[in-house]
């Protein structure tokens, strides 16, 4: 079997006396999409925050490419090649697309260290063309774009910088039907880039369309991990709710 990109072993996270995540273990492999499902308060967000370096696990180990790591903060995770796409779009609305693509990591040129806007625009154009994110231009202002185009930019940005893993937190929660389909297509195409994708979604239809495996959480407990092809919605719903159907 190939080396896993991310491996979580016995992750435990408590806030004070409240256990948010208990004994969670999961391995992610290159080119695969794993969905994280569960009811509100099941611990999905906590888990995303642990993987993206925002929270530290109380106990348990995180391995990247087999090497044990711990992130001091979100920047540490980012430097390790992990990118997050937030559901409320961490984009600066009044800035052009290319500045958002390079937000916090702007390219500069010699000798004065001034911004290399030309290169940022060209790189952005190349990336959005490659991913087929349809926007008027790399110079367009974010707020003139549709919700789907914005999410496309957010995902393209994550794709540009992630060398290992992309976390998608409800990427289509705010989008219409056609836009959701467009974003799903985009996520699907990321498989070929040999990175792993962990997606949190409330839409089981979406989970079944996109994922290779489904991991179910309930009240901080890991209920199970199923191969998408070998399960069905009823089984997953039963696992999420704890009720037999």
């Amino acid at each position, binding site marked *: 079997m190939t080396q896993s990109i991310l491996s979580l072993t016995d992750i435990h996270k408590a806030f004070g006396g409240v256990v948010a995540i208990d004994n969670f273990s999961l391995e992610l492999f290159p080119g695969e999409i794993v969905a994280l499902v569960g009811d509100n308060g099941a611990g999905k967000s906590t888990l995303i925050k642990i993987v993206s370096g925002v929270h530290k696990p109380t106990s348990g180990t995180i391995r990247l490419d087999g090497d044990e790591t711990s992130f001091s903060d979100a920047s540490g995770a980012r430097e390790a090649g992990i990118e997050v796409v937030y559901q409320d779009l961490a984009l600066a609305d009044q800035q052009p697309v290319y500045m958002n693509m390079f*937000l916090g990591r702007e390219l*500069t040129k010699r000798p004065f260290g*001034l911004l290399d806007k030309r290169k940022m625009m060209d790189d952005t154009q190349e990336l959005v063309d490659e991913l087929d994110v349809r926007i008027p231009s790399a110079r367009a202002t974010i707020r*003139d774009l549709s919700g789907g185009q914005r999410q496309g930019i957010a995902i393209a940005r994550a794709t540009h910088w992630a060398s290992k893993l992309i976390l998608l937190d409800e990427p289509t929660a705010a989008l219409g039907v056609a836009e959701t389909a467009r974003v799903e297509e985009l996520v699907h195409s990321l498989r070929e880039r040999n990175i792993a994708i962990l997606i949190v979604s409330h839409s089981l239809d979406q989970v079944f369309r996109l994922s290779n495996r489904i991991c179910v959480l309930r009240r901080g407990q890991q209920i199970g991990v199923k191969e998408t092809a070998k399960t069905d919605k009823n089984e997953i719903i039963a696992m999420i709710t704890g009720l037999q159907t």
Partner: protein
Amino acid sequence: MSPTAIYRKYELQNYIVYLGFIAIFLFFAVTLHDAGFTSTRNLTNILLQTAPATILAIGLVFALSAGEIDLSFGSAVAVSALSAAVVMQVLPMPFAILAGLGAGLAVGAFNGLLVAWLRLPSFLVTLATLGLFAGIARTMTDLRSIPVTNDFFTGFFGSGKLLGVPSLVWWTIIGIAIGHVVYRHTRFGAHVLATGDNARAAQVSGIKVPRIRFMVLTICGGCAGLAGLLYAGRLQSATYTLGESDLMIVIAAVIVGGTALNGGKGSIIGALIGSLLMGMLNNGLILMGLQVSDQMIVRGLIILVAVAASLRDTTR
């Protein structure tokens, strides 16, 4: 509204300061031709008089773009000018320059510390420090004016010329050039805009948001320090009232120049044109022979119209 219509509107709004500038210039040029509005001497005068306000406007563009505001720069101007004038009486001149700039930077850094790390709103912090430093300016010299007699100082910051161009014009050009490059073409400028646009997005992108907030307010202080030196140089004296009347004019200049009140968008060049527009207005109203009280009323109304026109479609 279609995206293209918004785009067009947006474009127009970016140019409104230039259109307003030309319109008011033409209006005064025609109506005040006999009063000498278009004479070289008068136009040069406008340029000289607006220099401190333009320098202050540069700082304010940075603060507003980062989603902060500085209301205290008027007091910082007075404290800086007085510090320079007092130090000049006892120490060699270069120390006076350092004292003036240092005093401005210190006021800015004080604001910045409170806003960036104590998380207090800049509006309230700088409203308080406006009063605080206005009081300090008054106690520094017991309300007395301090003469500034050093020839190099008054030439360098006031009446001097280099290559036939007055030093106040040089300061304006240098300030605008540096401000524009830093604002538009450096990572710092990009981080300022991102912070004012969406602080959370900036934060998760690894931008040190508190540091940006501290920096923009310190820049405002530094600009106030330089403006204080320019006032002291031009008037050849320093007094606690310097900068007192600049608050409304500088804010109006910056807003009319296309900088958003709530962050994320702005223009240094626009602020320069806005500042010149305010100076021209001031000058034209005086040449028209209006009483000071009437000038205030007319200027207030014109600023209201100008600000409304430039804000109309940013608030959607």
